[in-house]
């Protein structure tokens, strides 16, 4: 009996060691993919841009999901779409959580806050991708190619207008924060707090770089000071990113439970408020094997 217990304890310990060992490498892979996105987490505006982009894409998929369920009622009326509807509720809870993260970002942020925001972003992004993948997998498993084509046609007919209306405000906010972020960078670079650029150039990197070239040519005598400032800005930026990458696996682990708890709380609240086909049902996602 004791021998068996020892074996079980050893297996549990091995599993724990394996989980702890594998976790950072899983996040390291994600980090490699997200490096480009995480570069924005060096200012509060950049952080807002990335979270709003996530929100915009999530809202788009939610609207498409709603239209998919409407289309299913016509294409395959006897199909039980409760699993898909629960996934949609999860997506809505995620979108709420993203919104909440954006609304709490102050204009001036310290390194600690930026690291927390970047970790939250990685968690919310992975959750979103996972839900969308699961939704898509169910559709491809339960519907024929012909049925999917019919559903897709109906979604394309009905969703576009709703998507445009829903994300218009978010797109404007993204534009506004991209402009604020870029303005902050170029003003620091030129050491000219009042320097003005075209509104359109401030949201288009290539246009902005062309205007910057013109401004620098006109300040040729100050080129050495500009070079020095750019060097300092780059060093600070790289230090921030290195710190972010070094700590992100640890921070993601720390914040995963807190973020997931918030999402589940929101999901419970939503399900309690809107009793649908599975109203008041358990919030946990029914997983297919």
């Amino acid at each position, binding site marked *: 009996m004791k021998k068996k217990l020892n074996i079980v304890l050893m297996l549990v310990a091995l599993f724990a060691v394996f989980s702890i060992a594998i976790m950072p490498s899983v996040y390291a892979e994600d980090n490699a993919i997200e490096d480009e996105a995480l570069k924005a987490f060096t200012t509060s505006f950049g952080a807002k841009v990335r979270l709003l982009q996530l929100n915009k*894409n999530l809202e788009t998929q939610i609207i*498409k999901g709603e239209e998919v369920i409407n289309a299913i009622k016509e294409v395959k009326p006897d199909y039980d779409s409760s699993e898909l509807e629960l996934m949609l509720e999860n997506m809505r809870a995620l979108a709420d959580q993203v919104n909440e993260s954006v609304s709490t970002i102050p204009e001036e942020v310290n390194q600690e806050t930026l690291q927390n925001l970047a970790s939250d972003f990685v968690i919310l992004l992975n959750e979103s991708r996972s839900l*969308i993948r699961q939704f898509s997998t169910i559709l491809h498993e339960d519907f024929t190619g012909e049925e999917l084509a019919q559903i897709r046609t109906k979604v394309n007919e009905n969703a576009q207008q709703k998507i445009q209306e829903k994300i218009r405000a978010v797109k404007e906010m993204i534009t506004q924060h991209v402009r604020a972020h870029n303005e902050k960078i170029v003003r620091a670079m030129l050491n000219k707090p009042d320097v003005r650029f075209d509104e359109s150039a401030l949201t288009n*990197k290539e246009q902005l*770089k062309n205007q910057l070239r013109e401004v620098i040519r006109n300040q040729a005598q100050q*080129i050495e000071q500009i*070079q020095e400032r750019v060097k300092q800005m780059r060093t600070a930026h790289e230090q921030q990113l290195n710190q972010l990458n070094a700590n992100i696996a640890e921070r993601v682990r720390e914040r995963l439970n807190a973020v997931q708890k918030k999402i589940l709380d929101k999901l419970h609240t939503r399900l309690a408020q809107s009793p649908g086909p599975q109203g008041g049902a358990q919030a946990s996602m029914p997983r297919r094997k």
Partner: protein
Amino acid sequence: MNRKSLLTIALLAVVISALFLTSCSNNTQQPESNEVNQETQDSVTNDVVDQVDDLLLDENEDVEIGEII
């Protein structure tokens, strides 16, 4: 005109020609030098601007999450 005067005139002519040729040569070299300066300045400017590329955002960049259908 004695021989000494002729020699002086010849010498003066040589000096004037040399000065004229030098000035012509400077005139033709000046634009080249300006061009080189301009090219150097453009190259430094491009280098500086390229270094801030990473720090800037573009509104057309996006976060990929996939498609449900």
